[in-house]
């Protein structure tokens, strides 16, 4: 990028120091990327856990997402970092869905696309301290109901209710018009509402 550093040459003042090397180098880029992207690691990981429903797959997807994001950080021009990261993560997750669909034709019920989930899709394999908070009856049953939502309603709901993203940001991430996001969210909440009300019924 020529013409980006006229300052240092035009004013070789003794009190001028470029910290962290020249602006274009890998270290500077990596530091900027860290400052911009790492504060959202928990957000990205949370969405990965919801979308993939598996801790190990979620970790792989998040790492892949951050590596891709770093690679494309040079050309990143906005809008905002978090939706940008989540859009990359979503691509990674969809690639994983495709891989699962191909490699496990027999285990169809692993697929989030299988909407009419009969068994709870949300299952923790082990009771680690991290998951203990989710074992509480309420959070757990809410988790299960959310997990039973079919795509693309599930992802829309997670981005809205778990990530608190605006409709505009969700539209950016899922690459769909805002109107589509609104109708998907309405469908998602309507489905969840049925499950919600059904859960209340038998207890009386």
């Amino acid at each position, binding site marked *: 990028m020529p013409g980006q550093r006229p300052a240092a040459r035009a004013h070789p003042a003794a009190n*001028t120091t*470029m910290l*962290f090397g020249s602006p274009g180098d890998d270290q500077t880029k*990596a530091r900027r990327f860290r400052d911009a992207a790492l504060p959202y690691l*928990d957000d990205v*990981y949370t969405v990965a856990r919801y979308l993939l429903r598996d801790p190990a797959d*979620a970790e792989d997807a998040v790492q892949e997402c951050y590596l891709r994001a770093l690679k494309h950080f040079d050309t990143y021009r906005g809008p905002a*970092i978090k939706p940008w990261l989540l859009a990359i993560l979503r691509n990674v997750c969809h690639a994983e869905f495709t891989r699962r669909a191909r490699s496990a034709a027999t285990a169809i019920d692993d697929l989030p696309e299988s909407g009419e989930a009969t068994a709870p899709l949300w299952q923790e394999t082990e009771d680690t301290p991290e998951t203990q*908070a989710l074992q509480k009856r309420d959070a757990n049953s*809410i988790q299960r109901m959310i997990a039973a939502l079919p795509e693309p309603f599930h992802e829309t709901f997670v981005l809205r209710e778990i990530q608190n993203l605006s409709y505009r940001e969700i539209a950016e991430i899922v690459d769909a018009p805002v109107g589509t996001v609104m109708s998907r969210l309405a469908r998602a909440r309507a489905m969840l509402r049925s499950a919600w009300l059904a859960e209340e019924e038998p207890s009386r």
Partner: protein
Amino acid sequence: MTCDESDILLHALIDGELDAGHAREVENHIATCARCAAALRTYRDMKAAIAAEDMRFTAPAHLRQRIEAAMPQPRGTSRRSLLAGFAMGSAVSAMAATGIVAIVLRTDDEQRLASEIVSAHLRSLQAGHLTDVLSTDQHTVKPWFNGRLDVSPPVIDLTALGFTLIGGRLDYIDGRAIGAVVYKRRAHVINLFVAQTPNATHSPARTEDVQGFNIRRWRDHGLNFWAVSDLNADELAEFSDKFEKAMQANGNG
């Protein structure tokens, strides 16, 4: 409004995404429609229940380390301070993640922005993060921003007026690149964040206290300014007064 329309729009109402006119229409419909009123009640209950639970996950430490290990390592920054940076990153996102607070504040862009500005200020105070270009010369700091931002912030030397110019930094607020001009008053750092705004009207400076820091913000010449510091409110006001006067005298920086 029909029930079909209300079925979609009441979600935007719940989420604070509707403009005032449509919000009134939905509310009018709900006032006269028991079906939609019941739906709205359940949706609000659901939302409240979800907000009350911790529905988020924390990235495991080894995942942070894996990502970290895959990145080019910065020169002149010890591993120790990098980890401090990570700790801060997670503290910041943990703050943002405290469920119901984040949801209540969500539609209040200004408040969210203010807390992001405090976070950026805190980040900058970590070792090695305060300045990208370290110079007390405004003619060095100003051109440094050129090419890094669409609009480079006005850089004004206020040293003679009691506020020492330290340098400049490229920062991120709300996920967007933003210029920060760094000043010092005694031991107190002042970060002056400057961002372009389509709003050209002048807005006089006012101070608010956010998480124990003072933020003084004003708008001038199509730019939004936020000065943030742990400096007391009077001296921060003095800073913005002097900055604004100097900017006028300079003919817009």
